[in-house]
């Protein structure tokens, strides 16, 4: 039977479009614009979900974007909230956390055991014996779970967007709209957000039948929409506040990151439930929920209603029920009728019985409300000698409100209890944060509009740099709208404080008796406010309980800060788009055409090796062999490249690097080692001297920017006359290495490569294929080789020319992996791989690079002077027995002596040149000096013998990189 009303003036549904969806295989009809909850209610279904712990039947509670007992599972999404998820054609739903069906949940027996499951039961019962915990965990997760994640998910990424504004106004009700208008009229650029699909707020449900509100509604809505200074974002939730007014706004299509200069909070209030036995039965709901059902979705929430109230709003809701054709059985007022206003008088005139100074003692019914038991109520106690029973199918609760001030708390604002309003209200606000409306205790429409204007004026003045101080309480109501103790004890319990986590009044009392007598402790032990609604309708009552039973004030009981995000946010919205810059060298396409397999090196993509993935090992070996026996070519454009110019250039480099650069001859290069203040190696490269006051410096790929920064800081600290140019991106670099390198390169350049005029470690400038280049004779891979530094635009031409010229000798491009093996054979370390955040040059075997005596100063010198005699470990070479499988020993495997860890492998590879597996390892002293053999513990726990050996492994005298090998051979 349908409970759909005739068209309502402001309804959100579009009756011209009908939608069909299914729940538990049963088909339901709805209109476009219906939410799942309204559509189910329209068809007469009231039981919408089962509770988290006891599997109790639940229906509508708040219908305010936090009804977390009506959760549904679609094929793609878990935990859809019925009160905000719009139905779509063909939507297939099933309930969450149900064994069987909603109506016949096989787990509903758990509720009968509740007396044996006191608060903290899980912590106490399931941790011993430890071996059984996985069994319990599995069981609990199944019984007390929420939705199931679809593991066959498809990637859904919602790109983030960015918005800037002078002022963000949160909440599109009367006060929010008025505040936005006043601020925009003063010239501010305003963004107005509201979580609902339409502006209006409580004007459109609580005051929908108020003729006095109609004029304001029309005026505000049209003025807001017409004002070009206001950007309106509906269905948008400001779900967190971060420093400097940076707020994530959750929209249906993703997150907007908004930067504003100030924020006005006008998010209103969240209605709070009364606490009495069976206050969770379907049919018991907040008064505002019923008003939303009627005005937004044209749903008649019941046939025979009782209204429990402690404020005027309850009478307004009763009048609205009457207008919607619901029979009013009675109004139960927890206070006195004499303190109520015009709405109460109207209701009394209609002849509806009002029980004053009374409360609901319990609600009765099996799976839905059938009757309520009321009792006289004095000073927080029920008089059970005079109870009355009223038959009804709807019970509205209108006993209090709590400010939606989560973001005010996050920004560092303070709220304190106002006894006049029986509510926590803002008392201290940080810079740039303003509040107005019901959130600030302004309840009548006139108060709200005046408060909004005042808040806007305050924000405008603050942004203009001429802050004014205003009395936050100026526009607040003088009547309480919340009951200070809407909580009724019952010996049989089931009077729920927290509907998310099924916490009853006695659970909180027990927790306090166990000593969890502070709100932060109480929250963590009992989990109150930790469910999906984040305490939106539990925290206020929990604080009242704590304060009363501890005999302290509400302020002394304290409140918790809802951390960002205070509202559920889908992971897809958080994930956003993958946005990570990636740098490609000038030769990237060239590598692709040569079949390169790429790897990430910092932000760069570099060829790891060339050839199909299944031939990885043989490709790398062939590349190594080409360099050793013929000619190899590698793109080293990712090296940091810095020009250092000026009268103090040599002095700067002397300070920045361990070795002396001021003595470097023009046209020569020197190894450059950089340590920090503590003597730890941070970078290495080479420094070349172009002329007296000009140097060319290279740095490792990953440390290039940091080295540039370090040099530039030294210039500032010491006031040096030096200019730096970072040419890492503008220059490409190619290393041509192998016995044939000189002959092949000579055919393309005007620079004389003869060993007599261009020695090892020399640097020359000239032309190559018509481009200006700088050649450096280097030896990183241990063969005769030239590093060619050239303009980015020349890279492809030169690379192709070299490939062409080298084809007769079998030139081969080689990747990072082959280069690692080649340098390992030479015993050259890689900073950051063979060294870590504690390695100093002595431990790395580079005492030769630390001229303590001849240099007065360099960064880190005092530390190295102290460390010289205090080394604890040293980098050593290891050689594995021939025949050891190539991948058995890996980097970071431990070196063990009996049961003690004495070192670790830093680099390891099969050396094609030597025919065995070789490694570098950091080994504790004195073992590194005395041991001949060590044991490496590999993945399966087996220990592999390794022989200590002197470095380098290959060509120890460096003959190959110095002499003309073609002549020797």
């Amino acid at each position, binding site marked *: 039977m349908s409970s759909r009303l005739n068209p309502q003036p402001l309804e959100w549904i579009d009756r011209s479009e009908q939608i069909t969806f299914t729940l538990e295989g049963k088909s339901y009809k709805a209109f476009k614009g219906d939410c799942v909850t309204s559509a189910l209610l329209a068809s007469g279904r009231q039981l919408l979900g089962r509770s988290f712990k006891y599997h109790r039947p639940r229906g509508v509670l708040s219908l305010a974007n936090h009804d977390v007992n009506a959760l549904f599972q679609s094929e793609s999404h878990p935990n859809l909230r019925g009160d905000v998820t719009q139905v779509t054609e063909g939507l297939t739903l099933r309930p969450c956390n149900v064994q069987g069906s909603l109506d016949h949940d096989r787990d509903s027996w758990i509720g009968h055991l509740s007396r044996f499951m006191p608060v903290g039961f899980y912590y106490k019962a399931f941790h011993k014996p430890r071996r059984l915990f996985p069994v319990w965990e599995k069981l609990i997760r199944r019984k007390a779970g929420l939705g199931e994640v679809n593991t066959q998910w498809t990637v859904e990424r919602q790109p983030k967007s960015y918005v800037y504004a002078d002022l963000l106004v949160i909440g599109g009700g009367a006060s929010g709209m008025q505040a936005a208008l006043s601020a925009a009229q003063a010239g501010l650029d305003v963004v107005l957000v509201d979580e609902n699909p339409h502006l209006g707020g409580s004007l459109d449900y609580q005051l929908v039948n108020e003729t006095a509100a109609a004029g304001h509604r029309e005026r505000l809505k049209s003025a807001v929409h017409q004002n070009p200074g206001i950007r309106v974002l509906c269905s948008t939730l400001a779900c967190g506040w*971060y*420093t*400097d007014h*940076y707020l994530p706004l959750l929209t249906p299509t993703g997150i907007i*990151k908004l*930067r504003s200069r100030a924020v006005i909070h006008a998010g209103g209030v969240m209605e709070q439930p009364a606490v009495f036995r069976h206050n969770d039965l379907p049919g018991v709901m907040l008064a505002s929920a019923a008003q939303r059902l009627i005005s937004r979705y044209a749903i008649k929430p019941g046939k025979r209603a009782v209204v429990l109230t402690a404020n005027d709003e309850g009478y307004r809701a009763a009048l609205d029920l009457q207008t919607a054709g619901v029979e009013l059985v009675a109004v139960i007022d927890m206070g006195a009728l004499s303190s109520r206003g015009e709405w109460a008088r109207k209701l009394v005139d209609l002849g509806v019985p009002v029980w004053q100074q009374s409360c609901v003692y319990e609600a009765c019914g099996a799976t839905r409300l059938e009757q309520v038991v009321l009792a006289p109520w004095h000073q927080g106690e029920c008089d059970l000698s005079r109870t009355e029973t009223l038959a009804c199918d709807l019970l509205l609760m209108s006993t209090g409100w709590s400010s939606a001030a989560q973001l005010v708390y996050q920004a560092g604002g303070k709220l304190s209890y106002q006894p006049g309003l029986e509510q926590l209200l803002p008392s201290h606000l940080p810079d740039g944060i303003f509040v107005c409306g019901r959130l600030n205790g302004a309840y009548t429409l006139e108060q709200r509009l005046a408060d909004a204007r005042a808040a806007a004026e305050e924000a405008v003045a603050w942004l203009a740099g001429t802050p004014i101080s205003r009395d936050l309480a100026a526009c607040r109501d003088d009547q309480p709208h919340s009951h200070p103790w809407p909580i009724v004890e019952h010996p049989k319990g089931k009077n729920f404080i927290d509907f998310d986590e099924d916490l009853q009044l006695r659970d909180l009392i027990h927790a306090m008796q166990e000593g969890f007598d502070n709100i932060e402790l109480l929250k963590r032990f009992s989990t109150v406010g930790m469910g999906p609604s984040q305490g939106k309708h539990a925290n206020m009552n929990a604080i009242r309980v704590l304060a009363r039973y501890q005999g302290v004030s509400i302020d002394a009981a304290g409140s918790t800060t809802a951390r960002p995000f205070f509202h559920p946010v889908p992971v897809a919205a958080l994930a956003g788009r993958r946005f990570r810059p990636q740098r490609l060298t000038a030769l990237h396409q060239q590598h692709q055409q040569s079949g390169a397999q790429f790897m990430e090196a910092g932000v760069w993509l570099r060829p790891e090796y060339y050839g199909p993935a299944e031939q990885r090992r043989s490709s790398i070996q062939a590349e190594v062999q080409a360099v050793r026996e013929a000619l190899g070519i590698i793109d080293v454009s990712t090296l940091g490249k810095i020009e250092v110019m000026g009268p103090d250039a040599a*002095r700067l480099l002397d*300070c920045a690097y361990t070795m002396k650069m001021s003595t470097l001859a023009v046209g020569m290069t020197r190894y450059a080692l950089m340590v920090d*203040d*503590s003597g730890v190696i941070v970078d290495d490269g080479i420094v070349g001297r172009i002329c007296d006051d000009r140097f060319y410096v290279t740095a490792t790929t990953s440390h290039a920017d940091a080295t540039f*920064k370090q040099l*530039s*800081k030294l210039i*500032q*600290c*010491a*006031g040096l006359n030096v200019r730096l140019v970072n040419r890492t991106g503008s220059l490409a670099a190619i290393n041509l290495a192998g016995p044939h390198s000189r002959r092949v390169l000579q055919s393309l350049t005007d620079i004389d490569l003869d060993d007599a005029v261009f020695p090892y470690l020399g640097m020359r400038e000239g032309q190559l294929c018509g481009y200006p280049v700088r050649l450096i004779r280097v030896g990183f891979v241990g063969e005769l080789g030239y590093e060619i530094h050239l303009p980015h635009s020349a890279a492809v031409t030169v690379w192709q020319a070299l490939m062409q010229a080298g084809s007769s000798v079998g030139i081969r491009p080689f990747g990072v992996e082959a280069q690692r093996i080649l340098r390992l054979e030479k015993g050259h370390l890689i900073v950051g791989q063979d060294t870590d955040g504690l390695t100093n040059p002595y431990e790395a075997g580079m005492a030769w690079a630390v001229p303590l005596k001849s240099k*007065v*100063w360099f960064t880190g010198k*005092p*530390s190295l002077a*102290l460390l010289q005699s205090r080394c604890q470990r040293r980098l050593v070479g290891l050689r594995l027995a021939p025949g050891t499988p190539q991948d058995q020993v890996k980097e970071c495997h431990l070196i063990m002596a009996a049961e003690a860890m004495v070192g670790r492998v830093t680099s390891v590879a099969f050396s094609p040149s030597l025919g065995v597996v070789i490694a570098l390892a950091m080994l504790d002293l004195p073992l590194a000096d005395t041991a001949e053999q060590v044991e490496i513990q590999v993945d399966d726990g087996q220990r592999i013998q390794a022989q200590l050996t002197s470095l380098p492994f290959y060509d120890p005298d460096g003959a190959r990189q110095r002499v003309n090998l073609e002549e020797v051979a």
Partner: protein
Amino acid sequence: MKLLDCPVIGARPISEFDYMGEVRVPPFEADEAAWSDYVFNRNGAPGVLREWWYHRPSGRWYVLMRDTLTDRVVGHVDLAEVRYELPS
């Protein structure tokens, strides 16, 4: 994302800056204890610190005075004021 309100170039996203610590002069002639103190210890007491900030997009260095209690920049220092002579 936070903003850094630089007195010279105005408020910029803090992700454009690298923080390089408090302005300190290495004790060039220090004994082991004094040198170790310089290398390993930092002053964590709240107050106004003079700090190095590097603005990456422009490649410029600033020495800003920041109140570490309120996290507000309260001024900037001319780089000439924090210079020291390197030993030679």
